[in-house]
């Protein structure tokens, strides 16, 4: 996934999930500090979005509309994964 695709996906998550600022977690978050990301980031067609305080309806909506095997992915070739805080491992500090 390139940066333009990531920004597009972020905007769609914002709309679908109804959150002002979706938090990008996982390897795609490297785009926040550099455009020169490793191949492993570019070749990935998915991005994890941390949705704080989201419940099942929001997670379900993201999967249904812009998630894995959605019509969106079929058209564009990339998709969003929405995860909660319990599934994210963050570095200390």
């Amino acid at each position, binding site marked *: 996934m390139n940066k*333009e695709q990531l920004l597009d996906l972020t905007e769609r998550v914002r709309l679908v999930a109804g959150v002002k600022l979706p938090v990008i977690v996982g390897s795609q978050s490297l785009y926040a500090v550099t455009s020169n990301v490793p191949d492993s980031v570019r*070749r*990935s067609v*998915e991005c994890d979005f941390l949705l704080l305080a989201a419940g099942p309806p929001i997670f379900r909506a993201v*999967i249904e509309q812009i998630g894995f095997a959605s019509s969106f992915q079929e058209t*564009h070739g990339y998709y969003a994964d*929405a995860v*909660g805080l319990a*599934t994210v491992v963050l570095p200390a500090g």
Partner: protein
Amino acid sequence: MEAGEKIISTLDASAGAATLGSHQFLDDFALAYHLAVAERLRERPDAVIERARQNLSRWLEGDAFGPGERQSIEEWRKILDESDIGRLIRIITDTSEEGRRLRSSSPFVGTLTPEERLEILAACEQRATA
């Protein structure tokens, strides 16, 4: 097609059922989806593979995907070119980390109808809350 119930019954219950919003749930959903795709590959291999090839070609159209982003697409194109049906099914239903990685960029989106996809999603949710 009662895809959801049939597929979920084949998932490894001993692994535990993850909840929505977890990576495990998303992985389970992708595996369940591909178990259903495997059934379609047995029933109508030519049509399923042709649709997968069309997906790969469409994603390569234009300049949206640069050389880096094309790697997963080229990887799948090679797999489709070199694999018989049996090997394809083994790849898409492989429960290893490598299988999970390949499923995440699968070209088999659209093999199932949107209704069938949602049926599988609902079944995964039901399994998670049972």
